[in-house]
């Protein structure tokens, strides 16, 4: 047994090819980003060592701050909608829906499997006003709400909410399904015992369900966060960052800085900022779990 499982040749064969690909394509570039971030210009073109100057520049860059604000708003509201809404839906399926749960689950999960770009293009047409009304405006104008008809994606005030709504639409099913799964794992006895002790709906949720659901709510938050912190594909497909910079995220700003304007060094600083934000965010969310485990 030991001889078979300790076969060095086999281990090398099993591990090394994947290790090489992974190191060159995933690990090395991340390290490399740090190196790039200390240069200005792009490799081969005005490539100059500037030390940490790029990092200082970051917070004086109005475009960066704007993108950061947009990105944070997007993360906050989308997470709230996906996890909060998903939780409400999961509770509804568990306690109120009697028949056809599987069918409902299948339907609700469905938008999750759709390609992001396709959804973005589809919603672009739903919100459309020119050359003809899209689904939403056409509906509004025909039920007598003509005054609500507006260029949803063409004005800064509505573009981001429209984007957030779209991503809640795609993501909420996923979160409701995993939370529903966690709800099913809570034994009926516990819920019944709570009821007998006189817990109303809210108390039942607060004192019994929420603590038991906590780990799943946290991983749901982590998933939602790591999906929204990247904010790229859906925004690109729906609004392309516009109007103006109203929906331009950090990733999109990084992309245009480094690929359109060819400032690879400065782009790398933004890339590293996204990386750190990702780690810090998951760290903060996971902190909620640690505290609870003392009880």
């Amino acid at each position, binding site marked *: 047994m030991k001889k078979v499982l*300790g076969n060095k040749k086999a281990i090398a064969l*099993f591990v090394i090819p994947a290790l090489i690909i992974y190191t060159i394509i995933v690990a090395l570039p991340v390290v490399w980003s740090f190196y790039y971030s200390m240069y200005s210009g792009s490799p081969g073109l005005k490539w100059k060592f500037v030390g940490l100057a790029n990092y200082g520049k970051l917070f004086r860059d109005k475009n960066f701050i704007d993108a950061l604000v947009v990105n944070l708003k997007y993360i906050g509201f989308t997470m709230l909608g996906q996890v909060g809404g998903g939780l409400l839906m999961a509770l509804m399926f568990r306690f109120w829906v009697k028949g056809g749960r599987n069918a409902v689950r299948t339907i609700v*999960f469905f938008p999750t499997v759709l*390609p992001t770009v396709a959804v973005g293009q589809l919603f672009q047409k739903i919100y459309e006003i020119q050359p003809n009304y899209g689904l939403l405006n056409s509906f509004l104008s025909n039920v007598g709400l003509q005054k609500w008809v507006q260029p949803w994606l063409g004005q800064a005030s509505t573009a981001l909410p429209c984007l957030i709504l779209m991503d809640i*639409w795609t993501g909420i099913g996923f979160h409701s*399904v995993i939370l529903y799964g966690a709800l099913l794992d809570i034994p009926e006895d516990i819920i019944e015992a709570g009821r007998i002790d006189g817990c109303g709906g809210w108390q039942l949720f607060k004192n019994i369900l929420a603590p038991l659901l906590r780990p799943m709510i946290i991983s749901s938050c982590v998933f939602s966060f*790591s999906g929204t912190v990247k904010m790229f594909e859906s925004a690109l497909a729906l609004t392309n960052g516009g109007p103006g910079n109203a929906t331009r995220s950090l990733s999109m700003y990084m992309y245009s800085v480094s*690929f359109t304007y060819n400032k*690879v060094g400065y782009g790398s600083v933004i890339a590293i900022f996204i990386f750190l934000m990702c780690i810090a965010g998951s760290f903060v969310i996971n902190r909620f779990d640690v505290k609870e485990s003392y009880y």
Partner: protein
Amino acid sequence: MAQAAVAAQGSTRKKNRTGKVVSSVLIKIIVVLICFIDIYPIFWMITASFKQSYEWSAKPAYSLPDGLYFQNYIDAWNRGHMSTFFMNSMTYTLISLVFIVIFSVTVGFAVTKMQWKGRDFINRYFQLGIMVPVATALIPLFQIYKGMNIYNTRWALILTYIAFGLSLSIYLVTGYLRSFPDEIMEAAVIDGCDIYKLMRFIVVPLMKNAIVTVLVLQFFFKWNDLLFSMTFVSDTKLKTIQTGLMYFSDEFGSKNWGAIFASISMSIIPMLILYSVLNKFIIEGMTAGAVKG
């Protein structure tokens, strides 16, 4: 008195019952509404893909098409290069899936069941990749591919897809393998299996669930990729379906909604078919990362 009390009790019971009926109807309405909101946009898109252009200006957007105008699909498929994009996406996705499955099973097995120094380190090293946002690797990777002369080739995408699929897949596979019984392997070894036979005849067949999960999850990620494909290839002949869709509007202008809807529908149809047949697997596969974690 007693009679009055009984009567009062009866009436509150009745009230409760009507209350229950009202709320159960309300719940049904809410549930139906949720399902409607989830399904209707897709239904609308597919029906709209059969509309001729005059129908858009003549009638409200939500109306059904007059007939089945297949020309939209033909336009999208030929003039919009959807045939090329579709084939490219399929090729890249399938090739990378094969490698992701092979690598994740072999590495996963090596780091959980085989005995060697440093296996925990390697395992953790692979797991770090789950945290890496794609955007962070993008710029150096672009330079690396340029340096290796594989920028704007199929290999740039396939290699990237494989590499970025490894971390999560290995993580899922190791999760399954932890509960994999050692006794079965021991029996096989006593019967004379070497490591390769053990993998082929014992481990892989028993890992079917894990492999299906990895396949489902990674198919979804690779088929949906936009960022890599818009960065690493620029040639129209090499573009994937998602990049194709993005530039499709330019090709057709914003007027030809029918063809745009046809092209979006085409990108969704593989998912639609897969999902209607395998929805249970897909839901399980896609939520596995969250549930197992």
